[in-house]
């Protein structure tokens, strides 16, 4: 049932991109996003397309998995495309009432759609090839400088990774409690809004109790292993740049320069 939702959605295959340092991937995603906002010519977008396709191929993640991420933005995409199409001033193609389809509108809408789609695809490559733990690790290291201005970077990233880790556990727990209450004749589907809300009580009470129980257990287990925050804490797998990361950075620079040069 609920278990079918793919969250965290790491896709476990072995590829160069999977093995890359998470910081490299974070930076790469950032470069890609920036390039999408810089690019304003068809040639520049072609370069971005090539970059994206190459990344997908190297990552060995099936294309249909990556495209799945688009489902979430379809609505947003439709709205922004139609607004841009009809409300951009310029040379009209045809007109219905106050709605005017213009060449300029078509153009901006096209770029807008491409930009959004590429944004989603580009960032899904990162989330599909990086485990949530690596990701928070990478973020912690990349944002380490914020420590100096008093932001508790380590604590925040620890909270983030715990939260991510708990998502599948809580989903499973919800599934289990739901089934157990259904075995006692509970009905979660039918009824009006108030009845439905009421029927959630037998699900939510045990769920909250178990979430709190797990939280205290985890806190206890962490303390038992002498966890006391980020200070002086070493890593089992410290992040280290390898040759492939250096090559990746080189590729990013070449790519970004290319996109900037191809701007109109």
């Amino acid at each position, binding site marked *: 049932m609920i278990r079918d939702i793919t969250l965290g959605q790491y896709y476990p295959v072995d590829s160069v991109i999977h093995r890359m340092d998470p910081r490299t991937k974070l930076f790469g995603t950032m470069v890609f996003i920036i390039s999408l906002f810089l690019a304003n010519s068809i040639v520049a977008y072609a370069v971005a397309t090539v970059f994206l396709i190459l990344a997908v191929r190297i990552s060995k993640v099936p294309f249909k998995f990556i495209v799945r991420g688009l489902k979430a933005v379809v609505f947003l995409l439709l709205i922004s495309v139609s607004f841009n199409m009809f409300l951009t001033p310029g040379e009209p193609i045809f007109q219905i009432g106050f709605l005017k389809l213009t060449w300029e509108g078509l153009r901006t809408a096209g770029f807008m759609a491409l930009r959004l789609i590429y944004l989603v695809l580009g960032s899904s490559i990162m989330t599909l090839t990086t485990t949530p733990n690596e990701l928070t690790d990478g973020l912690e290291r990349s944002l380490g400088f914020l420590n100096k201005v008093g932001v508790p970077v380590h604590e925040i990233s620890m909270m983030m990774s715990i939260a991510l880790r708990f998502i599948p556990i809580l989903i499973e727990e919800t599934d289990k409690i739901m*089934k157990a*209450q*259904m*075995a*006692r004749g*509970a009905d979660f589907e039918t009824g009006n809004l108030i009845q439905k809300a009421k029927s959630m009580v*037998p699900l939510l009470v*045990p769920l909250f109790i*178990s979430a709190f129980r797990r939280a205290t257990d985890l806190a206890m287990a962490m303390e038992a292993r002498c966890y006391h925050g980020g200070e002086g804490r070493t890593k089992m797998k410290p992040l280290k740049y390898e040759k492939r990361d250096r090559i990746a950075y080189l590729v990013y620079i070449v790519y970004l320069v290319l996109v900037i040069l191809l701007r109109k």
Partner: protein
Amino acid sequence: MSIRVEHLNHIYGDGTVYEQYALRDVNFEIQDGEFVGLIGHTGSGKSTLIQHLNGLLKASSGAIYYNGENIYGEGYDMRALRSKVGLVFQYPEHQLFEVDVFSDVCFGPKNQGLSKEEIEERAKDALRQVGLDEKFWEQSPFELSGGQKRRVAIAGVLAMKPEVLILDEPTAGLDPKGRDEILDELTALHRDKHMTIILVSHSMEDIARYADRIMVMNHGEKVFDGPPRQVFHHYRELERIGLAAPQITYIIHELRDHGVPIDPDLITVEEARDAILALLGKAEEKEEKGKDKAE
């Protein structure tokens, strides 16, 4: 009146890289009033299997007949099935949610749409059946001990008056006394109310003592099915799939290897004790006879 399972397959994550057979071509029939032990190591498909029996999971292929009716048939009333086939999950105490014990037990019968008197009558019956003292009935279920909570949860299913009761490791995490009490109560239900019981367990000792039929699962397949004595004959195969026969079986086989003529079909400690004592008695007799002759 029976549960019949035919060619049941269940595949998790169908069509993705995570695809995995949880059940593969499972067939069996359980008659009314049987006490079946379902055993298998972690991940062998036991829990998946029992969730099919009351329609919580839908099979990828295959059929299940309850009292001759196909539960996947059109218009089959799943909710009615769930009140006939009661399922007690693992750690059932985690599902308690009401303000007091009594109302929590009432939850099931209330969902069956019974009258208030009937609901309360059933809840009282169920709580007495699991042997929970009346002084606890008005307490919050969260203030009880682990064993008491578990009884409340089992009562919550019993109150629905199921014809078949399935329990997924009802004794996990309980002390020996709590374990024996719960298992004895199940035996009483089986004996006095002629309830069909399916007990999922890791403990061969428990199953040997209570069940009159054992089904062994391994990697989603049913590998053995039969009376305990017969299944424990295969103790070497059981070991190979990560299980073990009751400890007493090993002692008996060891004794036989040393030439002691003991019956290999004994499965409980009590039976073995009596058999060994009987053998010792005979041996002593022989010895004494021998002495008499020598004199």
